[in-house]
């Protein structure tokens, strides 16, 4: 079974779509500590639902918490170019640090910059779009957003690869 590590926005959207719990039945999900802290609300229609993700999912061992060390963080900040470092969010950064350390994981993200970062860490093969993750898990859902799509993921990955080649 593949081991997935998810970005905060992916979890929020899957909760909003009502498929997150279903996904847990199909695969093992790993989340970085910072991402766990970032999931505070999700939406159903216009309603904003508060969630205590740690209590509901981490403490009940439905998902596995992954904490990067300061050295893990240091390692990726030395690999990423300044322009990416300055723009990346905290949850994405720790997830990348965990991924860099544990290459058995596959990172599911809908964030353009996080996806663009993967080639700089030689982790292009360790990324997956939301669309593909759901397909692999046999979950069908309503219409997905553009950043969920495989095409979006591949475009951003290609952008990252090109930037790396250019010595960005």
């Amino acid at each position, binding site marked *: 079974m593949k081991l997935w590590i998810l970005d905060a926005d992916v979890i929020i959207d899957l909760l909003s779509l009502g498929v997150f719990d279903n996904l847990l039945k199909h695969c093992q999900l790993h989340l970085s500590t910072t991402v766990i802290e970032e999931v505070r609300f999700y939406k159903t229609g216009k309603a904003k639902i508060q969630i205590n993700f740690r209590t509901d999912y981490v403490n009940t061992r439905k998902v596995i918490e992954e904490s990067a060390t300061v050295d893990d963080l240091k390692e990726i900040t030395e690999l990423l170019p300044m322009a990416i470092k300055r723009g990346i*969010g*905290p949850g994405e950064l720790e997830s990348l640090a965990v991924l860099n350390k544990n290459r058995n994981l596959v990172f599911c993200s809908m964030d353009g910059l996080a996806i663009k970062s993967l080639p700089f860490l030689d982790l292009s093969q360790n990324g997956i779009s939301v669309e593909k993750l759901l397909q692999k898990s046999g979950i069908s859902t309503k219409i997905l957003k553009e950043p969920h799509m495989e095409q979006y993921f591949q475009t951003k990955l290609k952008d990252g690869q090109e930037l790396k080649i250019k010595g960005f």
Partner: protein
Amino acid sequence: MMETHDLALRLKKARESVGLTLKSAADKMGFSNYQTLGSIENGAREVKAAEIIKFSKIYYCSIDVLIGTGDHNDEKPRLLWRRAPEEHVRKMIEKRVHKLAEQCVWLQEALTISSRRKFKTFVSDREEIATNFKVDDIARQARKSLDLGRRPSLSLKDALEQQMGVVVIYDALSDAGSAASMVHPRYGAIVVINSNESPWRQNYDLAHELFHLYTWELFTQDELQDPVLFHDIERKADRFASTLLLPSEEIQSRVHQKLDENKKLSKADFVDIAREFGVSTQALAYRMKNANLISWEVADRIAKNEEVLGLSKDRRWDEREKAPKSEILTDLAIRGLRKSIISRGKFAELCGIDRCDIDDFINEKGILYNDGESFEIMDS
């Protein structure tokens, strides 16, 4: 292994730079007691990456600096405070403003925006603000050059941000202090407004700070330490704000209209006119006195009248509905997200929203996830 001792020192230095005590920093970090942070700063307890990330957030300091892969920026921006808060609060706000300004400049560079409009002043000599009449002249000139029209408060913020490149930052200053401003060689002109204030108070503060921006180069920081000079400048900034937001001919015209309708001017009329011009009833009363429409005694009585103040609050409750945001920062963040120069997490941070609100926020602004189709522009 990272040198624990060095990391501990850097964390301590970062905490002190924002004026946080061990206890208040520990509270913000969510530690059950301050001894935990004490152990970290003594190098006796290992720090997790997630904690470093949290430290960087509460200390307004980059992760690179904390883990030793970046240089610490010791620059202290010179913010001119209208009424400075206590030192520890001031330090934190100035650090936060500094960080936002840095991100603003970085985003402009990353988006290859050649330069946002540079703030330009037309006040070059102290003589130009020597008297009240001269200050009034400056205000009229500003209203004209910014094209603020007949109700200046309605367009002042947009004019400052769009025409003059002023970054207006809204910060919950609570009762700690009032507005502040600076003109920085790298960051440009910045105004900090208390987001907890009423909209009409914010308008007035914005106009007041504009006077400081215009006269920024006229006084040195050392000179401004002189309370007599500072008080005089503050008084003039108030005068400027009042004249800018309340054009005398417009006030007169509105008052006469009311008199034509009702034969007298009631307390409720005062509230209505103040609302129309986006100012407080006190500001309107004193302006009417300066325009010789009412006597000083009447102005003072209105300004201090509890019923008028209550009426004003009740009638104007709807003006408080939406928290204002810095348009320049929001615009840069949106463009940065669209081009994947910043991540969604950073976007939420910059716009001060929760991550689950990102898409609704984007939809409200009517942008796409990418630049979309290009259109050909015809030669004119």
